[in-house]
């Protein structure tokens, strides 16, 4: 058998897992691994400028491809810097393997230089973690890490490697296991046939149905099945923030995103529904508003790979269905094909009339729902972005008002096209995630929709973009304040802007972009927006930083009224639902 050092074993395991690219930052505890990395050529390493960005980039890579993302960080501060990235991936169920170095085994627990208990620090935000205790166990640990990360409900796995486990002179036999079986971990591979049948029966009885699809459909590669099934039924479809793209955004059957900043018609339809078909969605508090008032008349079907997501917040689930969405939906389609029964067309027609009435009156895409002032409106930036990119760009968002505008006004027709930190809401996610997306898709347009607050949280990555020629386009909605915080302060704190403004100290983003070797553009005139945007995307091989000054007073609407039901919304600065 081949003899390899622990460092070499890690690199070989990555190769065996089909990993082409990893994101990392070297340091003392991982130098042996870096030396092994240097001496092989199947895995490329991208040197970021901060470990948080390494994990976000691996995350963006994974979200856009469906493959496991890999990050490599050193012990101590390297590991703790990675924590935000790991938590981000955990909340959105993104499969990652994060390899962290640790001090040599004999120093663990001695407060050694750059020592931190990574297993302990990361415990609440990982799907699982491993501390390598012998060189021999490295192949098995790596195999398990990848298996756990990508199967079932995906998630990040940490592999913590003490430095002595990777010493180049310590060679051990290496054989990479072909399969792995864990007696304590057997995620469902199919749904229960009886429950599938019940789900179909209930769906066919519906008079006012809504299909509520979430990130599980995107992660489970089930967008195609969802689309086929939804079209068969002809029922309205709403997507969660994480589910955008699971059903084509430009399709008439799509009634928009739901939730806190969801479309009026989507939230109303949910509240009035008699049957809700929840697919790969987890009834998040940003969706349900007050769970006690959630959709009082709805009989609910819930498909989820994670049994713990079922009945977690909303308790009245009539048909729970545990299983991966793709085979479950495929089974539903097949069973439906054999059934000789169709939905109630008359009821459906009336339901669509009601929904279309809501859409006419309040839909974000059916009229101008915001007042244009003499500045650039943030919503218009997204609309123009949609036009200029033909709706085909990867949109990587940061967190805040711009994120909601990007979710509302860009129509996502494809899954994995919309990349954002939905669960954790991590500012600084956008740019590094976009790097991962761009590296995975060198020929595609990748835009970062951000704000001057978020972008400054990982702005150092502009340097990484230079080094590896990642021509992402940064669409900075500059309102010179932390917009979402300010919006809440307007609505709930009498306009007292505590800690949310910094307009006098913002950098000159054009010069900043230029300092990193990129192109900077400042846009302030609404009539220049489109031509500037076209110019930006025509520079295919350059990073362009568009610093777009938008109306600083604008709010994101609709917005759920706190503690209310799905249908209770503020619609503008002057209107709210009754």
């Amino acid at each position, binding site marked *: 058998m081949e003899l390899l050092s622990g460092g070499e074993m890690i690199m070989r395991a990555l190769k065996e897992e089909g990993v082409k690219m990893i994101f990392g930052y070297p340091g003392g505890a991982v130098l042996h691994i870096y030396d092994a990395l240097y001496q092989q050529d199947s895995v490329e390493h991208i040197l970021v400028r901060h470990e948080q960005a390494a994990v976000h980039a691996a995350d963006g890579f994974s979200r856009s491809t469906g493959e496991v993302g890999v990050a490599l960080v050193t012990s101590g501060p390297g590991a703790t810097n990675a924590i935000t990235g790991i938590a981000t991936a955990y909340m959105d169920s993104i499969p990652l393997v994060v390899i962290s170095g640790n001090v040599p085994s004999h120093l663990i627990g001695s407060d050694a230089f750059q020592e931190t208990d990574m*297993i*302990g620090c990361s*415990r*609440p935000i990982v*799907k*699982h*973690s491993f*501390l390598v*205790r012998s060189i021999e166990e490295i192949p098995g640990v790596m195999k398990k890490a990848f298996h*756990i990360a990508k199967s079932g409900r995906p998630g990040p796995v940490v592999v913590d490697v003490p430095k002595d486990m990777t010493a180049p002179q310590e060679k051990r036999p290496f054989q990479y296991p072909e399969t792995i079986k*864990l*007696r*304590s*971990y057997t995620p469902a591979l199919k749904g229960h046939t009886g429950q599938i049948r019940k789900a179909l029966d209930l769906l066919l009885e519906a008079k006012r149905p809504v299909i509520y699809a979430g990130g599980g459909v995107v992660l489970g590669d089930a967008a195609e099945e969802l689309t086929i099934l939804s079209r068969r039924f002809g029922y309205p479809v709403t997507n969660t923030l994480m589910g955008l793209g699971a059903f084509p955004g430009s399709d008439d059957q799509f009634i928009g995103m739901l939730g806190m900043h969801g479309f009026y018609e989507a939230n109303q339809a949910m509240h009035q529904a008699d049957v809700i078909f929840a697919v790969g969605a987890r009834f998040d508090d940003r969706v349900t508003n007050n769970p006690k008032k959630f959709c009082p008349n709805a009989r609910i079907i819930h498909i989820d790979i*994670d*049994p*713990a997501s079922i*009945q*977690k917040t909303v*308790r009245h689930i009539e048909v729970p269905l545990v299983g991966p969405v793709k085979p479950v939906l495929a089974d539903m389609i097949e069973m439906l094909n054999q059934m000789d029964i169709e939905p109630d067309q008359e009821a459906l027609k009336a339901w669509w009339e009601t929904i279309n009435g809501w859409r006419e009156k309040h839909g974000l895409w059916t009229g101008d729902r915001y007042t244009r002032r003499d500045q650039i409106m943030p919503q218009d930036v997204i609309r123009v972005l949609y036009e200029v990119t033909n709706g085909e760009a990867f949109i990587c968002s940061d967190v805040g008002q711009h994120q909601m505008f990007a979710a509302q006004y860009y129509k996502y027709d494809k899954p994995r096209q919309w990349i954002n930190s939905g669960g954790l809401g991590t500012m600084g996610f956008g740019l590094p995630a976009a790097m991962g997306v761009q590296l995975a898709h060198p020929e595609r347009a990748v835009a970062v929709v951000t704000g001057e607050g978020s972008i400054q949280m990982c702005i150092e990555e502009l340097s990484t973009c230079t080094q590896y020629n990642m021509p992402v386009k940064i669409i900075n909605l500059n309102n010179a304040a932390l917009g979402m915080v300010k919006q809440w302060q307007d609505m709930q704190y009498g306009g007292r802007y505590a800690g949310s403004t910094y307009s006098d100290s913002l950098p000159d983003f054009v010069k900043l972009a230029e300092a990193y070797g990129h192109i900077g553009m400042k846009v302030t005139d609404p009539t220049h927006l489109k031509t500037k945007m076209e110019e930006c995307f025509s520079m295919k091989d350059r990073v362009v930083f568009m610093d777009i000054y938008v109306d600083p007073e604008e709010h994101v609407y609709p917005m759920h009224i706190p503690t209310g039901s799905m249908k209770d919304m503020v619609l503008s600065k002057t209107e709210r639902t009754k």
Partner: protein
Amino acid sequence: MRHIISVLMENEPGALSRVVGLFSQRGFNIESLTVAPTEDATLSRLTVTTIGEDGVIEQITKQLNKLIDVVKLVDLTEGDHIERELMLIKIKATGAQRAEVKRTCDIFRGQVVDVAPAMYTVQLTGASEKLDAFIESIGTSAILEVVRSGVSGIARGERVLSV
């Protein structure tokens, strides 16, 4: 309601911290916790008693099951079961009190396992309620020290929790 959840898990370093961490992370309550290896050295058996409404207990069992190290679990309170806890208790016992303590100990089928001039150390096993009752009968003023093992439990009849 009080539940006794019995968990078979991998006897791995870190497994216990994952279970305990889960409870604190999600705001679940732990009344008592016992853990030790089983006849199979690769498995540990952990018993946790907790109090919560049905929804909370459902989440506890589901979230425990999600932990990779957890092999199997059962909520013993869902069926007939035997529950035992061991207590070692040091009690002040001088003069007339000495006979009284011994008598109470006999009533509860406890054993005096250590004797000193001014105290007894008593060992008592039983359901937690019985141990509570013993403590109450002795009265806190006479108690010097109490050590309780936490609850262990097993299902009655042919039901078995094994791999």
